[in-house]
């Protein structure tokens, strides 16, 4: 080493440079922000909806069915979005429906994640027979049409809300399992996991402290998409008449029950459909925004 003194005195001036310009935090575009706003709005409705709704979801008016928007009935009041096929106030039912539809979808998705992620990560971490067994069962579930599985479950256990949640949860746990397993396998080969193992860490530490935190972000975005699928899935079940128990309002069956109205210009079916669309589209917008900010930047450099 030539003059060790020289560089000690310089080292103050020339300290190490950062590798790259500091990574900017994830920031949403206005589209993404719009999405967030709408989703938040609906989430609030899940909690306050029923309380601010002018009528009870099961209230059957004594006036007329398929009333147009902004119609008022004496003694009963104002129907912002008109009434449905048996004279219930659509606006109120949409507000109530937020709780049922989003509530159920959300719980179901949460369940799907609880099951799918824990099994998926477990399969990835443990490997061996556990992995093989789980994967085969998973294939089987995925290879069957989800509607049909739903039908089986509802026929077997009746279309109660728990059944719906369980069914949707189970079905979508399968696809979550896949993703979680893949993610897990990628992370398991990282050095820091190996380091933890050599340190003699327990399986649960490795799963919960090393693997999961690193799988969190991709799983979070996937959660959004999954949630959308579940909403649509439950709507489809409602379409086949297997959905939520009446008189509870859920957007899917609201669309279904009022479809006839469309034929002669009642929008009774359009409003709940819009509710579904705004919610699901918004979630997708957010997810898109997030994944956009993480990729494709090089593509813009093409000339």
């Amino acid at each position, binding site marked *: *080493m*030539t*003059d060790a003194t*020289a*560089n000690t005195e*310089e080292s103050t*001036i*020339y300290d*190490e*440079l*950062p*590798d*790259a*310009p*500091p*990574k*900017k935090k994830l*920031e949403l575009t206005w589209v993404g922000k719009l999405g967030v706003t709408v989703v938040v709005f609906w989430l609030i409705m899940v909690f306050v909806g029923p309380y601010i709704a002018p009528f009870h979801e099961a209230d059957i008016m004594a006036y007329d069915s398929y009333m147009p928007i902004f119609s008022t009935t004496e003694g009963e009041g104002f129907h912002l979005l008109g009434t449905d096929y048996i004279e219930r106030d659509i606006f109120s039912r949409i507000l109530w429906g937020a709780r049922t539809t989003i509530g159920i979808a959300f719980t179901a998705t949460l369940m799907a994640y609880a099951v799918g992620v824990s099994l998926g990560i477990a399969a990835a971490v443990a490997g061996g027979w556990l992995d093989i067994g789980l994967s085969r069962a998973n294939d089987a579930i995925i290879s069957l049409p989800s509607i049909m599985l739903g039908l089986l479950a509802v026929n077997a256990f009746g279309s109660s809300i728990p059944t719906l949640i369980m069914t949707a949860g189970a079905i979508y746990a399968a696809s979550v399992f896949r993703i979680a397993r893949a993610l897990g396998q990628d992370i398991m080969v*990282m*050095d*820091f996991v*190996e*380091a933890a*193992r*050599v*340190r*003699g*860490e327990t399986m649960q530490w490795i799963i919960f*402290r*090393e693997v999961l*935190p*690193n799988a*969190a972000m991709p799983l979070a975005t996937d959660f959004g998409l999954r949630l959308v699928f579940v909403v649509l899935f439950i709507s489809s079940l409602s379409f086949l008449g297997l959905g939520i128990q009446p008189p509870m309002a859920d957007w899917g069956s609201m669309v279904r029950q009022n479809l006839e109205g469309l034929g002669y210009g009642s929008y009774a079916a359009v409003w709940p459909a819009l509710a579904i669309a705004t919610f699901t589209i918004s979630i997708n917008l957010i997810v898109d925004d997030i994944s956009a900010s993480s990729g494709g*930047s*090089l593509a*813009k*450099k093409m*000339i």
Partner: protein
Amino acid sequence: MTELLEVKGLKIAAPQKDGSEIPIVKGVDFNVKAGEVVALIGESGSGKTTISLGSLGYTKPGLEFTGGSIKLHGNDILTMGNDDLRSLRGQKVAYLAQSAAATFNPAITIGEQVTESAVLHGVMTQEEATIRATELYHALELPDPELLGGRYPHQVSGGQLQRLMAAMALVGRPDLLVLDEPTTALDVTTQIEVLKAFKKVIQEEGSAAIYVTHDLAVVAQIADHIVVLYSGEVQEQGSVDQIINNPQHPYTKRLMAAAHAGPKPGMGDKLSGDHDKDIANVQVKDMTAGYGEIRDGKPAITVLRDINMSVKNGHVVGVIGESGCGKSTLARVIAGLLPAAQGNIILDGKTLEGSYKQRTKLELQKIQFVYQMADTALNPKQMIGEILGRPIEMFQGLTGKKKREKVAETLRMVELPVEFENRYPAELSGGQKQRVNLARSLAAEPEIMLCDEVTSALDSIVGSNVVKLLKRLRDLTGVSFMFITHDLSTVAAFADEIVVLYAGRIVEQGPVDEVLSPPFHPYTRLLISSVPEMKIGWLEETMKKREMAVGIARGVEITAVGCPFYNRCPIAIDGTCNIKTPPVHEPTPGHQISCHHSLEDILGFENAPQQVLHGFEKAAPDDAAIL
């Protein structure tokens, strides 16, 4: 000579969401004359790559040109329209990236990728391009040039890909080549062959070049003019001779200091005081290991064969060899990450279980493995405090305040500010991350640390700082090190003993000074000669040497019988070296060389006049061309 490229007041910055800018390049001026090689030198973050890309009118995503001009043949690249820019790229200016492995498209044949730009820009027809490419393969001394074009990137070695990059850049006869750290990722022996090839073709083609690197020694061999950069500003620029032989600017001086002269005996500073406690800390006995299912002591793929070595208390053992020689595997076996197929690992006289799973907590604590890549070794989702705290908690059983104190102490030991405990790895620079990486192992208070290439990913300055740190740690804690690297100089400066691994076998080992002075094992000799020295014209001299004639331009062959180095050895004896396992000579106690030649012969060859012993001259048909 006329100016080919003129860079004036070049400014490049990263615009932020809030409209502000983070300047990356802060007004840089330099020129490149036709046929001249200009080197941009600086650490990572100095903006050297950004500038070099600027000469193709390109900035990485997130950056943009904010001022100045880059004129090629007098017209400004920064104001060019897309079509001009497209024809500029690849046709007038060609780019060679650092990692060829990542830069070649895995799904397209080499031939197509090499000829692509030339054909697209209508410089030549596919046929012409293919012929031209084949010529270049020849010139670059690539194996079977005729077939190469039909291969896919994954089918050729890293060194070959690096040279293929050169072919890809040169095929369209560009006016300017931009080489971005083209040899940094390579082994010394590969690096020298690639360097040689580059220099040759650049001279033949007479094209100008911008050569981006942090390695002064390399620059000394290839550049005419040097531009020294620090954080986006030119510190000093001048001719190679001037910069190398009498640097003015303090920063340049510092760079020179960090860049080490070639490995010589006696440059390492020994452990303070004599090696009083010369008892083996870790011993490896008749160990054979590899991957795949183990059948009667033989793994499917054998990586290490009959390894015998030891690390004495408080010693630093440097394990050296080219990539693929099994040096990392050796560390992994000791750490219990890869159970050996045969032989034992002995810690403080006690034989260890093969797999870490069966080892006791204490044993795990005593042996700590330090990974090469801090980026993958540190959990990005844990704060430094947590990363360091965990081993302390587990091995010292400290918690709460005590634990935090210990964390702070550890941070201080690796010369990092205590505040770092609340930061995430992503918020640290490469060197800082590497220090944390070391600190984590240190926090376990081990007896031995197995450091796997901990400096090879770092710039010379940062790297040398880390080495200094390691020395201090050894003196401080008396922990022993197994220091794995392909960089002989670092070992020479730091280790007490050296183990030279080749193709999974130990060809030579012993105290640093003995190993670095004759008699050499032919492979050790090759390694030593391959380390670039900060001497103009060193490359040419070296290439004249005998071992170079056959040592380079040949792949490693893992063999079970005979001497592993046979096919690259200048003094190999047909019928012996390739059949019998070589005997072990012990010139001085503890210094072992395994070779079929007697020590006298080996010494003899050292001093013998340059003459090739047997039919390997075809190996490097046109060494002469370099001169």
